[in-house]
């Protein structure tokens, strides 16, 4: 989940929670999760300093909290991505050669 959210925020810039869900949703139906669980996860990442939040106005003039990746978050993203790749590569390898 963290990997997905960080990736989306890295590529698409500041987004509010709903937009993040929509993006993940649009990109892949398979990764559909309970939408609400995004928020505790966002708040944990905010607490850890990977992302930061600020209040913005939407096009309909509503207040919303937009999240933005931080430098710490980018470093974390790089590490998470590498780890993910190594795991999937290892699994691929097993699947191919077993």
């Amino acid at each position, binding site marked *: 989940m963290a990997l997905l959210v960080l990736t989306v925020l890295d590529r698409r810039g500041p987004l*509010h*929670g*709903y937009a993040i*869900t*929509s993006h993940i949703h649009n990109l892949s139906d398979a990764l559909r999760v*309970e*939408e*609400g*669980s995004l*928020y*505790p996860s966002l*708040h*944990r990442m*905010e*607490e850890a300093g990977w992302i930061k939040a600020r209040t913005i106005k939407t096009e309909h003039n*509503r*207040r*919303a*909290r937009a999240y933005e990746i931080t430098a710490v978050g980018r470093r974390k993203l790089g590490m998470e991505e590498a780890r993910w790749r190594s795991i999937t590569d290892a699994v691929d390898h097993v699947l191919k050669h077993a």
Partner: protein
Amino acid sequence: MSWLSRIANALRSSGVDDSLDEEITFHIESRVADLVAGGMTRDAAVTIARRQFGNRLRLREESRDVKLMPWLDSLVRDVRLGVRMLRKNGVMTTAAVLSLSLALGACVAAFSLVDALILRPLPVHQPGQLIYLTVPSGNPEAPDKDDFSDPVFVRLRDTGRGYVDLFAIRYPDRPRVTFDMASGDRETVRSQFVSGDTFDRLGVAAAAGRLLTMQDDRQPGAHPVAVLSHAFWMQRFAGDPGIVGRWFVVHDRQGDRPFEIIGVTQPDFFGAEPGHPTDVWMPYAMQDPHAFGNTGYNSLRLFGRVKDGVRLEQVQSLLQVAFTNVRREYAPGHVDPAWPPDRVERFINMPLYVRSAATGPSPLRAEFQRPLLILTAIAALVLLVAGSNVANLFLARTSAREREMSLRLSLGAGRGRLIQQVLIESALVAGAACLIGLIFAAFAAPAVVGTLTSADDPVLLDLRVDWRLLTVITGATLLMTALFGLAPAMRASSVKPMTALKVSGGRLSPRTGAARLFVAMQVAFSLIVVFVGSLLVRSFVNLSSVNPGFAASDVLLVSLEAVQRVEGDQQSAAVLQVLDRLGDLPGVAAVSAAEFNVLGRPWRNTLPVPGAARETIEATMAPVTSGYFETMKIPLVAGRTFVRRDLDAEDPTVVIVNESFAKGYFGRELAVGRLFDAGFGRARTSNEVVGVVADVRYDLHKPPAPTIYILLPVRGFQTLQVRVTAGATAIAARLREEVRVATPLLRVTSITSQESMVSGTLGRERLLALLSSLFGLVGLVLTAVGLYGTLSYAVVQRAREIGIRIALGARAIGSVRSVLTDTAVATLIGAACGLAGGLYASRFVATLLFEVAAREVWSIALPLGTLLLAASVAAAVPAWRAARVDPVITLRNE
């Protein structure tokens, strides 16, 4: 987000809740808008959006825990609830807080005294390195002596060089000085002569000017400089920076000498003796010239700073050799030729002790250490009584709150939360009690110091609030919280929701033994306090009823000083003029003069008993004028008293002795008309005993001392005894003026009454008796309240059961018994333990008791009877209520 903002969030958590809600609502509404845009009906869209979002409440809580510190949040909530619950039970809370704060305050006050007098190190550099020297006093009951002479100081200082840096601080003096030259007004200061390196050795810095150095201590009489204490500078001169360089005049036995103020010490430095701060320090070289080289002039305390890496035993053995040598050298001038050789050896081989001076030597401490520690222990016991009382109240209340607890448990609260809730309530009570106790202590401790003080010996203790005191207070508060919070907390956490919610009224859960344990504890602790207190009170009563042998009432003591130095004859004449003038005043029955006050510091003289080579008698010397025995109403047993004619004799050799001396010195033979050889501060002469008077107790604690009354030699300082006719004490106001009229050579410095002098000597005993009886009373009341509460609660709790029993034909007495038995057994067990504890504790007060023993019938019966009486009174009302339970009413309530 930092932890600070999380704490802030916990303290005002509603803002976090709002923003979380807003974020979630925004999400759902956006989803609904998208779905509606996609062609769905609004209702369906809302349903789907909600379902996709998941459990909104749970997710919100999850986020909330991230943003707040969950434990702090629950803590804040529990504190709020705690305050609400405590305010709901206002009376109980007030009682708990007040009883606790009284006991806590007493403890804190006692500790601050113990700290100031016993524990706190001197405010100097590395006090642990400081030592001072003592020698045995020869009396096993008296503390060691710490007065040395100049030759001993010089020898020990030179010997110790390289191992220990010795310096001398003379015993404090209270000279009259003149700061204000224009008016010439005199005031009394506390001064000390110190060797020049004292401040260097102590590591004390100057707040203004400079302090004394060895340069100020070279030539006897040649360094008229002085240093003020910071406190005195502030109080007398309001911290005037122009003080350095000012001159003042000291009026003492060396005459009127001007001194220049060269500096002020650092703020917290008061000298080397806690309780008796010094105002003015002057160089050792400026003291009484008779002191130099005089082995008989013991007026110095010897201090030292031990060098790094030197052990105290090394210092002791080094100094001991020098001490023995110097005593051997001067022994011929000090030992009586009549002394047996082993006694002379004992004189020479006097042991020298090296003591730590980290807290400073203090006669006050020697006298009050034990009483203060006893009072602290008593206060701690009362605190335990108060604590168990509150514990019992809390326990009862927790039982009453079982339903609330059960409800919270069934709604999903953790048991930890319930324990936390109860502990927080007890911490709130303990904290409040602590604050009030602190205020109480702030008044109580100085009041106790006030009772240690007498007019001519003021005691000033620094009772500051510092980290040591705060540690004790915090510790006491935590201990109290644990003591009276833990049992109820355990009870709260062991609630079984099913049974508690099912059963209505009556006993909810079986009562644990905790309540009875607390009753037993209270009884035991308060019995110890009452036991020890009753011993101290009876001891004080015994002492007060001791007949001192003279009539202290209606006697005024008038202290005189010389206005200017004159020849002995002139001064003698002046004293006689004053005596004549005062004696003629209407309302004055008799007047006399004495060298020092009866009950003051005695002058002793050791005389060999004739016919018994090895025996000596230690006689108290009392220089008085004619009329003394009449004024003090000391009965004459044989012979005659002094008459005016004796005073006129060129070299008076007549003496009067008391019965103890007559018996000890002359045996059964008649004393009057006998001669004996002795020199009382003058050449040895033959003295004729002209009279024998009744024994007088100069110290009420001790049997009458053998006393020799001699005629008053004329010196600068005297005290007049003025016996006024009954009730005419108002004349005191006129005496000052009358003395001025009688002679220009003398003036009055102070007027007190003999009665206050006598009661002043019992200050320690009075303090102990007063405070211990007060504590005993508080302990008794608390125990009675505790018993009453426990029993009342039991009656209420078991009303239904009793009601049924009575309805079924049981007799009222049976229900009373059923309620009382448990508590009565607990009380008796507590009393037995308390009695054993009291007997044990009495060993620590034994040395302070006067004609009272712990193992007497009265010592045991009195406190035990008082306690059981208090317990019975406390039990009477609940017992009566139990007997009056009306089955109709109780059962209808169901």
